[in-house]
C-alpha cells in the first residue's frame, strides 16, 4: 500500500481557537518527516487530524484516497498512531496489547485469524520482545514498554506511522535504541513516518526532512541544515542555541544566556510572567 501523503488546507480548531491553519504538506512514500516547533505550535493537532481524532477541514490524501471518505476501520488500516502518553491497561500481556493493532482486520464478531496472530508475533519479534510476549506490559521497563507500543502500531500494517514524541520520557540510550528500531523497520518496510519531536538533535539525525510549526503555521521546512539555524530557533523557540555540524550530523546545543541566568528562565517564559 502506498504511503505517499498529500495534505492541503488543513485547519484544526480546538475550543474555538485555530491551532493549525491552512497547512499544506506533501510526503513521499517511505519518507520520515519531523514536525518540530515550540509547545503549542500545533504538532500534535496535525497528527491527530491525520489519525481522525480531531475534527478538521481541508483535505488529506493517502495514496490516492481521501481519508475523509474512509470508515474508521479503513483509516486504521492506513494510519497507525503512537501517542505521546499511551495508556497501558493493568495486567494486559504484551501479545494481547500488540494484538490490539490487528483490530481493523478482525471480523465483525471480533474474531482473529491465524494471520492476525502471526502479524502480531512478527511485530513483537521485530522489536526484540519475543521473550516478553506473555509478560504484562506494566511490568516492563520504560524502553520495553515504548517498544511494545510501537509493535502494536506495526501490527496495524499501515503504510503511514504517526509518532507523537515517542521517546520523550526515555533516557538517551533507550531513546536512540527505539528510534534506530523505527528507522530500520521504516527502511525495510517502506513506511512513511511523521513524528512530532522536541529534541532537535534527534530530529536532525533521524528525519529526512523537517517542518517547523509555530502558531499553527509552517515557518520553515526543508533539510535539517536549512531549518535548524540558530536564528530560526531563537525567533520561534526564544532560545539561544549553537548548531554544530560534524561527520555525525547536526547537533543543537542550548546555551544559557546571561539574562536567563539572572532572571532564572528564558525570555519566552519571562514574557509569560
Amino acid at each position: 500500500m502506498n504511503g505517499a501523503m498529500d495534505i492541503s488546507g488543513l485547519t484544526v480548531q480546538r475550543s474555538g481557537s485555530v491551532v493549525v491553519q491552512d497547512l499544506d504538506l506533501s510526503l513521499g512514500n517511505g519518507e520520515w518527516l519531523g514536525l518540530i516547533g515550540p509547545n503549542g505550535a500545533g504538532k500534535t493537532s496535525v497528527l491527530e487530524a491525520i489519525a481522525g481524532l480531531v475534527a478538521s477541514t481541508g483535505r488529506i490524501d493517502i495514496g490516492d484516497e481521501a481519508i475523509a471518505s474512509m470508515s474508521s476501520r479503513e483509516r486504521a488500516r492506513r494510519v497507525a498512531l503512537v501517542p505521546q502518553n499511551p495508556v497501558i491497561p493493568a495486567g494486559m500481556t504484551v501479545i494481547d496489547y500488540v494484538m490490539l493493532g490487528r483490530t481493523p482486520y478482525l471480523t465483525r464478531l471480533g474474531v482473529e485469524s491465524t494471520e492476525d496472530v502471526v502479524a502480531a508475533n512478527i511485530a513483537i519479534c521485530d522489536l526484540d520482545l519475543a521473550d516478553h510476549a506473555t509478560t504484562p506490559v506494566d511490568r516492563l521497563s520504560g524502553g520495553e514498554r515504548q517498544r511494545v507500543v510501537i509493535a502494536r502500531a506495526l501490527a496495524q500494517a499501515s503504510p503511514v506511522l504517526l509518532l507523537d514524541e515517542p521517546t520523550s520520557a526515555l533516557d538517551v540510550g533507550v531513546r536512540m535504541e527505539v528510534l534506530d528500531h523505527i528507522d530500520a523497520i521504516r527502511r525495510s518496510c517502506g513506511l512513511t513516518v511523521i513524528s512530532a519531536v522536541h529534541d532537535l538533535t534527534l530530529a536532525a539525525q533521524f528525519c529526512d526532512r523537517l517542518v517547523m510549526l509555530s502558531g499553527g503555521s509552517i515557518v520553515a521546512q526543508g533539510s535539517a541544515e536549512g531549518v535548524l539555524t540558530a536564528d530560526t530557533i531563537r525567533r520561534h523557540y526564544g532560545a539561544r542555541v549553537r548548531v554544530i555540524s560534524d561527520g555525525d550530523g547536526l547537533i543543537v546545543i542550548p546555551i544559557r544566556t546571561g539574562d536567563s541566568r539572572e532572571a532564572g528562565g528564558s525570555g519566552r517564559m519571562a514574557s509569560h510572567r
Partner: protein
Amino acid sequence: MTAIPTRLATPTRLSWFSVGVVAILVAAALVTGALLGPADIGVSQILGEVLSRIPGLGVESELTEIQRDILWSWRFPRVVLGMMVGGTLALSGAAYQGVFRNPLADPYLLGIAAGAALGATLAIVTGLPAALLVPSAFVGGVGAVVATFALGRTMGDRSATTLILAGVAIASFLTAATTFVQQRNSESLREVFAWILGRLSTSGWTEVALLAPYAVVSTLVMLRYRRTLDMLAVGDDEAASLGVDVNRVRTVVVLAATAGTAAAVAVSGLIAFVGIIVPHAVRLFVGTSYRVVLPLSLLSGAGFLVAADIAARGLMSPAELPIGVVTSFLGAPFFVLVLRTSRRNL
C-alpha cells in the same frame, strides 16, 4: 528487517479448563439449591425426575405428586431464576467496568439499580400490566445512568471517585423518590416491599419467563463486544485510532447492560454487589482480558447467586434472610478491598 518468530505466542483465550471448573461449581450450587428444603428429596430422585421428563429415555420418577410439585413449582424456578439474575448482574457489572474503564463501576453504585427500582415501583403502584414491569425498570435504569454521567462530567473530572460520588448522589435521590412513591401509595406497599426485599423466595416460572428474553439478548450483545472492551482499555483516542467506533460501542454496551440489570431488578428486587464481587474474583484467577472475564463472570455470577441464596436459606434456618443482605455482607468488605487495590488508578 522482518523477523520470523520461531514460536507463536497466542493471545488470551477462554480455556476449556476454566470453563469446566466454573461449570462444575455452578452445577454443585444448582444441585445443592434444589436439594435444600423441608421436604426430603435426594440427588438420585431429582436426577430421576429430570430424566423422566425426557421422552424416549424410559426413566421412571420415584417422586410423589407432592414432591414433584415442590420441585417444579418452588425449588427449580428459584435456582433457575437465581442463576439468571446472578449471571446477568455479574456480566453487566463486568461490562460497565470495561466500558467506563472503571474498576468500581457496578449497576448499584452507578444508581442504575435505584433507577430501575423506581421505574418498577411506578409500574406496580400505577397498576401497569406485568409485561410492562421490565420496560419501566429499563427506562428508570437508563435515566439513572445518564444522570450519573451527566453529573460526573459537571464535577470537572472523569475519575472513578467522581463517578462513584455522582452515582451515590443519584441513587440516594432515586431511592428517596421510590420511598416517596411508596408512601403515597400505601395500598400497594406490601407488594412493593415484597419485591424490594428480593423475590427469589417467592418466584416462579412467570418471573423466569419475564426475565429470559431480556437476559438472553443483553447477554448476547455484551458477549459480542467482549473483545472490543479490551480495545477501550487503552482509552478513547487510542481505541478510535485502532478503528473502533467508541461512542457506538459505549452506547450499545451500556444499553444492553442496563436492560439486563433492569430486568434482573424487576424480577428479583435489589440484590447488591454481585457486579463487583464476581468480575473481580474472576480477574484474580484468569487475568484482565474481557474476552475471558465476561463469559466467566456470566457463569460464576450464576453459581454465586445460587450459593448466596443457599446461605440466605440456611444461615438462620428455618427463617430466611433476604438474599440482598447476604450479598451486601460479602460485597461491602470486597468493595473496600477493590477500592484499596485500585487507589493508584483513581
